[in-house]
């Protein structure tokens, strides 16, 4: 705790000193601000990509353990460098754009996918001061930015000019539109309880009262199901259901472009797990023997593991059952939860 705070303070001092030095050079202040914003972004990005590399390895290990096999074992102890080599392979693979594809949309789609997956981390509070920007509409920002990925999937699916891709894209559009609503409802209930939409505020509210998991069990249920569906994880991985749609929206993607989708997927997984930790398990807060950041990481990985566990155990849900679950179960439950929360907020 102490270490982290002093670190933050030190960085703040450095920033102020740098700014004064910068203006003394006669270069306008906004260049410095922009530069620092870029630096901040790079820092978050590095953290994120390292995590994604680890997550991919973790996924394979978890899947392996669940299926009674060791998972990757070569390339480093316990195959820890496996992902690194996989990434290397993806980069040097031939870059294929189908001749009948809509070239520009095809190229843009991975970018539209990865950009929000990175942008969304702006509001994630890793610690009391470790937050890129604490927007006071944090929750709204989250649901807004995450809705971009629908567009990316549709672009990818449509531009590939492949029937399986198109089917995958249509599935994903239907799925994500349907599950965005319960996700939003769960977020709204959390916001009502905390009295703010700022993620930092929500964590602080939980420090005052208790973890929202205890106050919001229904909301948590809705959130975790909708979040799993929103990031296309099994059993809701219909857009890329490999046994039905070959590979769904990314059938025609290969090499680095495919890798970008892959990275975005894991970044989203990490983000949703982090959101679950922040909104329902008190985020960074925890006993002082661990720094806040590690508490956040621990709770996040708890949810990552939970989502992986569920995904490797259950069969895939069918597309009409998915819609039923969304519209006939999650949305009514989410609405009821909001009503209950309203009553609760008024009473207390």
């Amino acid at each position, binding site marked *: 705790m102490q270490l982290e705070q002093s670190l933050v303070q030190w960085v703040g001092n450095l920033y102020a000193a740098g700014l004064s030095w910068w203006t003394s050079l006669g270069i306008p202040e906004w260049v410095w601000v922009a530069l620092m914003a870029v630096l901040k972004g790079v820092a978050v990005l590095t953290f994120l990509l390292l995590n994604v590399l680890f997550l991919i390895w973790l996924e394979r290990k978890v899947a392996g353990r669940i299926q009674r096999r060791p998972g990757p074992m070569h390339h480093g102890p316990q195959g820890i460098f496996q992902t690194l080599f996989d990434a290397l392979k993806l980069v040097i693979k031939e870059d294929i754009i189908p001749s009948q594809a809509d070239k520009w949309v095809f190229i843009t789609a991975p970018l539209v996918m990865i950009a929000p997956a990175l942008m969304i981390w702006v509001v994630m509070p890793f610690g009391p001061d470790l937050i890129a920007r604490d927007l006071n509409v944090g929750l709204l920002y989250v649901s807004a930015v995450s809705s971009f990925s629908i567009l990316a999937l549709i672009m990818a699916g449509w531009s590939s000019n492949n*029937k399986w891709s198109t089917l995958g894209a249509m599935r994903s559009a239907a799925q994500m539109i349907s599950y965005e609503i319960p996700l939003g409802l769960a977020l709204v209930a959390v916001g009502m309880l905390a009295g703010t939409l700022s993620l930092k505020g929500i964590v602080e509210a939980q420090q005052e009262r208790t973890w929202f998991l205890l106050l919001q069990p229904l909301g948590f249920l809705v959130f975790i199901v909708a979040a799993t569906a929103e990031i296309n994880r099994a059993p809701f991985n219909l857009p890329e259901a490999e046994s039905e749609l070959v590979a769904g929206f990314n059938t025609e993607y290969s090499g680095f472009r495919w890798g970008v989708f892959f990275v975005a997927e894991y970044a989203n997984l990490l983000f949703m797990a982090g959101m679950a930790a922040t909104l329902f398990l008190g985020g960074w807060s925890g006993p002082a023997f661990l720094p806040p950041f590690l508490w956040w990481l621990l709770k996040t990985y708890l949810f990552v593991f939970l989502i992986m566990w569920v995904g490797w155990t*259950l069969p895939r849900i069918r597309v009409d059952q998915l819609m039923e679950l969304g519209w006939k179960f999650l949305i009514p439950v989410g609405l009821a939860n909001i009503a209950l929360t309203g009553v609760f907020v008024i009473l207390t």
Partner: protein
Amino acid sequence: MATTSPPAQAPDVRVVPDEQDRSSSHLYVSMGPQHPSTHGVLRLKARIDGERIVDVDPDIGYLHRCFEKHSEQLTYPQIVPYTDRCDYLAAINNELTFALAVEKLLGLEVPPRAQYLRVITMELQRIASHLIAFGTFAMDLGATTAFLYCWRERESIINLLEEISGARMLFHYVRIGGVRNDVTDDWLRRVRAFVDDFISDKLPQYHRLITGNRLFVRRTKGIAVLTPEDAIAWGASGPVLRGSGVARDLRKVEPYCGIEKYDFNVPVGENGDVFDRYMVRMLEMEESAKIIKQALEGIEAGDVMAPLPRRWKVEGETYVRTEGPKGEVGCYLVGDGSDKPYRLHWRAPSFVHLQLIPVISKGLLIADLVAVIGSLDPVFGEVDR
């Protein structure tokens, strides 16, 4: 058993055109021959409306290896390994069918120990084949984990069979006149141990993992119902026929290898849907294990090969069929007195079952189509031969 006659006119099997009909609002997709869940090289030409299937036309032949033509150039013992490659997931059952056919034409008596060994290996092979059917079926539905659990048990079976045959997939163990090798008592003990473990531990695991799962049940119950009338009229056999509630098992109806002495049940389904076909397979594994146990108790010492004739003079014709894991494996053999068959026709259950896809999958979703293929459990080695 239902015995209503099907309608007398030709059934409505519509051909799905390859070309996109611009005036239609349907989408034409070609599922396969390279598709993750077509169990080989099945190609389905499907006309879909959204995700709903309007029409589907199976297209086969991508694995045609001229087995029947080839057999006409080979002597009888030479054909045996090629029969393995028909249903390559149940090699023993194929060898057995062919061996029984030749033995019948030759009038060979197979020694009793060989009979027991044939029953043991045949039923082990049935378990192995059903395991793959179950595993791939679960994987098609998105439950990848069950697949690897099945692989684990199949590996044990393969190890056992490898020990006595030397091969891991195309065993070539059952020969005309008996079986290739005798087995040791230790091997029999290990088969026993495997079967006991399988029944008490492994099979309940599968049920816990998959059968009781609500997602699984909702995806399989009431899907692609095959009525008993249709099943009979279309010549379905094996778990597909029994899943529709028709208790026809060739081991009961036309016993071979002394299987009439064993005590086992013929599980049947009630509704004829995907779930019932799956469940019949699961229950059959149990029955197979029961048969193996009885065979292990009854096995007696003795020769495993009958003395073979020096000069093969196979004359006449016969149709011999056995109950393979997929259904009725039939060998229609016409001999002309020489050592090579005049005509050999292989009745492959998967070939017949694939006809059912257009019949039972109209109006389903693409995701269901995958389940339907899995529940029919086709193997393309025998479909295309």
